[in-house]
């Protein structure tokens, strides 16, 4: 009898075990999917590409004193990188952040939270993921054409190039990663790559992308919110200008100008709402598409709404000096002046004001698009390039086109005098001055100043130091002047934890 029992129990134990352990232990996540099940058809490919764009507006708005890595929206980072060190921003004391003030005073340490670059590399990784896995889809989904595939890849290449371009302009040399981090086998400790190498890489990527990208998606919002061939041309023009390659810059600009797809929006009472409040105007080339109906708001309400202790406001010189008042007719105003800031509170109207009113947006309605490129900039890119290629008059004409549209107020003594057309430096400075007004608070100013200052360093340095001294307290002026003698000071330091985590990174020597 015992034998029988033992025999039976062995039989049953085997039976239990044969409910294969491996199958039992293989579980799949139920909310979401995994890579092995993804990349199967063109719809999935599209949602991965949309995911790249969605990452541009990822994160939560600035809500307090604790800024953690990855928490900051990219638009906040881009705004602060492009404006804080320049001359148009100040801090109202109540809500200011110490780190913001330190950046403004040129007192930047590697521990400053603003030098974190995580949000950009997060997007780069998504681009890299698309670039690696997208080509595999075509063999699985026969309805995907090579042209469609190439167009999707062109979008990823372009967004990646845009991210790297922001990084090299801000940090100089940065690590360059062109493959995704998908598994723990992909972990590497990258060294810094020289700026020139990265620029070469992204220019070559862009020329690949240019041949593959679409001209239009057939829907206006898509044309402004996703990469088209014109986005690529605009980015090319910007990069060529950064590398002082004026001929190529003009070529890229002409591709957009001659397409006939863009024009300046009239500078009338609807200008604010058309270009900024509503966005996706006929002038726009590429914008981050925040959208109130889809729960993603931009970070600007919390940054600029002074009544709740916003952290940043417009510099006092913006009204009256940058935008002079017509002494003969105070009602004759530059349309851009009121859009720039509220003369009283210094609130930055471009982001939180409302057209023809002193009312401001609310937290829930703060979803204006972050404009990366618009047609006016292409004209001024071209003007800047023309200044140095002996086409000064044409450049001045382009500037005038912008001025006329905006009803620019020229007040002798306050405004820059019109330079001679054959004076490249004069013309280019005139372009720079107009750029300041046209793109104020659009995250361009600091990069413009650096571009001008680097052109013939250190001779051209005063172009940068002169405006920022206006803003600096007298005690700091001499220090700032000395500091910028070192060209490395134009770039930000690498965040200290990055150096702790990646021993192959080399800190910008200015901050060592």
């Amino acid at each position, binding site marked *: 009898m015992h034998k029988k*029992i033992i025999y039976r*129990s062995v039989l*049953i*134990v085997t039976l*239990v075990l044969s*409910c294969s352990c491996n199958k*039992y*232990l*293989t*579980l799949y*996540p139920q*909310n979401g999917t*995994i*890579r092995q099940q*993804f990349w199967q058809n063109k719809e999935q490919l599209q*949602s*991965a590409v*949309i*995911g790249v764009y*969605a990452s541009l*507006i990822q994160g*939560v708005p600035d*809500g*307090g004193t604790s800024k953690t890595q*990855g928490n900051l929206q990219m638009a906040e980072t881009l705004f602060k990188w492009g404006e804080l060190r320049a001359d148009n921003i100040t801090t109202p004391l*109540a*809500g200011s952040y*110490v780190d913001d003030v330190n950046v403004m005073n040129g*007192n930047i*340490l590697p521990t400053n939270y603003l030098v*974190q*670059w995580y949000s950009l*590399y*997060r997007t780069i*990784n*998504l681009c890299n993921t698309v670039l690696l896995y997208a080509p595999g889809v075509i063999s699985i989904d026969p309805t995907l054409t090579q042209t469609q595939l190439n167009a999707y890849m062109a979008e990823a290449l372009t967004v990646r190039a845009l991210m790297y371009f922001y990084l090299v302009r801000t940090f100089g040399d*940065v*690590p360059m*990663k062109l493959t995704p*981090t*998908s*598994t*723990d086998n992909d*972990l590497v*400790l*990258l060294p810094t790559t020289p700026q020139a190498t990265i620029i070469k890489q992204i220019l070559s990527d862009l020329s690949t992308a240019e041949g593959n990208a679409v001209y239009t998606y057939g829907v206006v*919002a*898509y044309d402004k919110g996703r990469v088209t061939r014109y986005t690529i041309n605009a980015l090319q023009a910007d990069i060529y200008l950064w590398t002082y390659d004026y001929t190529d810059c003009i070529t890229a600009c002409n591709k957009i100008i001659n397409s006939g797809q863009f024009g300046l929006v009239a500078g009338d009472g609807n200008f604010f709402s058309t270009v900024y409040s509503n966005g996706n105007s006929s002038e726009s080339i590429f914008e981050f598409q925040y*959208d109130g109906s*889809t*729960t*993603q708001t931009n970070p600007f309400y919390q940054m600029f709404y002074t009544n*709740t*202790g916003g952290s940043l406001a417009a510099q006092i010189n913006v009204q009256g000096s940058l935008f002079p008042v017509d002494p003969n007719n105070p009602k004759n105003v530059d349309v851009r002046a009121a859009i720039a800031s509220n003369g009283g509170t210094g609130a930055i109207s471009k982001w939180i004001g409302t057209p023809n009113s002193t009312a401001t947006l609310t*937290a*829930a309605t703060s979803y204006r698009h972050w404009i990366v490129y618009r047609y006016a900039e292409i004209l001024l890119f071209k003007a800047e390039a023309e200044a140095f290629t002996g086409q000064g008059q044409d450049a001045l004409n382009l500037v005038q086109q912008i001025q006329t549209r905006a009803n620019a107020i020229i007040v002798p003594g306050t405004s820059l005098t019109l330079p001679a057309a054959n004076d490249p430096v004069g013309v280019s400075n005139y372009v720079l001055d107009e750029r300041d007004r046209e793109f104020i608070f659009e995250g361009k100013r600091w990069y413009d100043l650096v571009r001008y200052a680097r052109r013939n360093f250190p001779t051209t340095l005063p172009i940068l130091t002169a405006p920022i001294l206006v803003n600096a307290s007298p005690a700091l002026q001499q220090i700032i002047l000395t500091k910028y003698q070192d060209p490395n000071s134009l770039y930000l330091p690498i965040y200290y934890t990055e150096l*702790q*985590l990646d*021993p192959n990174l080399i800190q910008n020597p200015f901050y*060592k």
Partner: protein
Amino acid sequence: MRKIITYICCIFALSACFFSQSLKAQTAANKILIKGKLIDSKTKEPLIGASVQEQDADKRTVTGTVTDIDGNFALPVKSTANKIVFSYIGYTAQSFPIGSTTVFNVSLVSARELVQVNITGQVQRDNGTGLKIDSRDLTTASATIQMKDLEELAVTSVDQALQGRLPGVDIVASSGDPGAGMSIKIRGTSTINGASNPLVVVDGVPFETSIPTDFNFATADEQGYASLLSIAPSDIKDITVLKDAAATAVWGSRAANGVLIINTKRGVQSAPVLTYSFTGSLDIQPTAIPLLNGNQYSELIPEEYQNGQGVPINIYKYPEFQHDISNPFYYYNYGQNTDWLAAITQNGYLLQNNISLTGGGEKARYFASVGYTSQLGTTVGTGLTRLNARLNLDYIVSNKIHFTTDIAYTHSVTQGDYGTTIRSVAQNKMPTMSIYQYNTLGQQTPVLFTPSSNVQGQYPGTYNPVALAQQGNNNGYADRITPHFTVNYQIVPGLLTLHEDIQFDINTNRVSSFLPASATGLASTLLNANTAYEFDTDAFDVYTKTNFIITPKIGEKQTFQGLIQLSSDDTKSVNQSLLTANSATAILQDPSAQGLDVGTGLGVASGLTETRSVSALVSGQYSLLDRYIINISLRGDGNSRFGPAHRYGIFPAVSTRYRLSGEPFMSGFKFINDLSVRASYGVIGNAPATDYSFYNNYSGYTYTYLGQTGVYPSNIELDNLRWEKVTGKNLGFNLIMFNNRVNFDAEIYRNTTTDLFFNTNLPSNLGFSTVNLNVGTLDNQGFEISLNVTPLKTKNWIIDFAFNIAHNENVIRALSPYVSVTTGSPLANGSYESTLLLNNPLGSFYGYVYQGVYPTQSSTIATDKNGNQIKDPNGVPVQTVFGLGNGKYYNFQPGDAKYQDVNHDGIIDARDVQYLGNGNPQFTGGFGPTVTFMRNWKLNLFFSYRTGFDIINGTEISTTNEYTFNNQSTAVLSRWEKPGDITQIPRALYGAGYNWLGSSRYVSDGSYLRFSSATVRYNLNQTFAKKLGIKSASVYVTGQNLYTWTHYLGQDPEISPRAGDIYQQPIDSSTTPPFKSYTIGLTGTF
């Protein structure tokens, strides 16, 4: 699920097989009628309704009947080979072989006349595996505590009661709030990432205490959730701690941090015993660090601002400092002397009521209890109410089959304040501010004063703590039911036993929180104004365990027990959450009230995870001549949290015991009861804390882009993640002498964790910020000694004394390059540097050496080694500067903090940073006597201690930095104010300077000795009790946390390093000391 059903079916099939075996034995025979009468042996009264049963050789009931009104019965029996058994409640059962007898006239003896018998014998301890091993034969390191010894303590959770009682078990409270979790560490931290709490096993089955990993919203935290160990302390019989790897190895992957085995009380054969117990205690919050009052604060701030900014404070910009009666709004609202901490502090209480009923007959036994606990915390707005119920049933079908059914239910409501910062905000808050608003006429209104922002900033940096405590909440509602069934079947009596366990664990938790705009002053349009949050998680767990236990008789001089065990576990957890904002008023605190649910971060979220594990264990214990004992086990684990390549692990363990006292040559030493040496070696595997990490998961964004949904890879696929393995070696020594009056136990051990899990930060150029990797090797090594003696034992007096001491250090042995070896920056105020050095203990930190304050300008001149002034080439004395890097310096001014210039270069910088201390205690433990007089009076004192560790006093940093508009402690009244002042507190410097760098100024020795508890208990005299109609009763008074001897100046030296922090900086940020509590308790048995 289908898998589970299949498994259960198999088990039933298995059981059915064996039943059919036993059923076969009952072949129909000629039925014989048996008759008779039952009477009481004393009164000769007939017993009505007494049970008469025919039982077979296995004591299984075959047929049965009850006696009639005259005590008569008639029963047709199936076999005359069986026995006939008579039983009646309150009487001793009797049994007789049937044989040829057909008439039984039996008189039963009332159990009340029986003399109480104390059954003595060796305590058998189930190490959880199913093997029954005498505690004197244990080959592994473990410690047991009887709950009886702790019953006087006013605790809501078992872990609180165990503090300091067991050597090598370090239990530290994470907060004094009701319902807060405890950090339990057995022999240090062997794992850094994820749960470091030990596995809790209740009645042989693992009890889930971890927090679901999907608990991810920022508005709730682990503390707010902790319903850890929601077992009523009064239901517990004993607790055993398994410490060495050989003991825990049989528990597999979740046991890497040690195992706490809890056995609940069970019924015994007796008349019903009703026990009622009550404890009530009063919790008093001692006064916190003295802070500046409004007047002192108003003096400090203008001075601080002037020093820091070089200009007087602009009172038009900061009307908070105007103090101008012509501006009554500011004059009154910022002209008070408010003690914010006192305003949110109250006296707490704890009331516990528990009724239990236990008893049983020969066949069925029961233990049932109901308990109700209510606690009011010492911070306004915190509290706990809990209802516990437990029913433990044993049914003995026959000698062969034994069923148990245990059902436990817990319902608890934990009330908490929103967020965790309320006490620190109250501490920092300007004392000049008013709690209630004054209007522009200077009249006080009932409205709580909450400006949206003022000079101190805005939410979340600051808010009105009184409003938050009164109107905000963060409540947890937990319901948990755990039905546990076992069947024990002796397949071959005395040789082979089957023990089958199945437990269901249904655990639902709901967290509901509300952030009132009245506390934050936020404009109603902001997304965090009136935020209501609701989180619900439901976990369903099925655990099965099948044991085959073999106990062959292999001769007189040797014994053997063997075990084959199969177990499986399946946990499913589903959660939903809802976050809305801008509800119309603070009264509408539920997210379902109409509010804004569209906006960044708002809306709904849900998740579902499932984890499975299986294991097989083969284990055996062999003993020769009662002297040489060896235990070997081999466990195989499979876990769904690993990828296919690393899913299974095999973990062996060996342990031995050599009983020297059993040797013949030791027979001369009669006073030695036991002298043994134990040695063990074991390996345990630890599984990661998250599910599905070996997949590249693609998730969707919570918002759309251009109306389309986007997808992104949300993690790094972990192809290489392996089991984290803890290899433990232990050498133990037991000595029991003088008839158990001296009990000495010593252990020395080393636990080596290889393939240590660490959620390391990544350089962000990889596109992800963190990844879980196997990063290195960590050693935990140390020793433990415990001594229990009974120096005096007379008829009237018994004195017991217990003492334990333990030492543990953790040392890092290898580290992956992906772990940053340093944290903190010596350039930043308030930051200490930590560096992971191979072969050095964790928890060391570095900083400057503080040398007081520069009294005058001349004292700031740098000096060389000999104390002479350093001069530049022009002969001008060089000032001491603080090096900011990048060629930038800060010149020290009179009144600034002076740091030691170690290399005498005139520059204070990273080169002057020195070792300042380590946060790991040298020794931990406790001791105390118990005095019993006349068996009725009992006095118990208990002291606990931790020595030889350093603490960074984070509270001192924040209350003496004089750097912001935050309130400061009264220590700053002695600050430097004018040249020549000699003091230890530097000048006030708003937003400038380097006066509070991480330095020796804030570091102090944290050693302490705490008078943890004192109890006086009186047991009512038996005869007196009887007069009152009760069996027994006792009354006791306990004081807890009575006094702490320490040189530490902070609030409380009992701190635990943050979990998940590999650097383990011991920063004490507590704002209030733990409360003292005074308890009165009553227990009555009926």
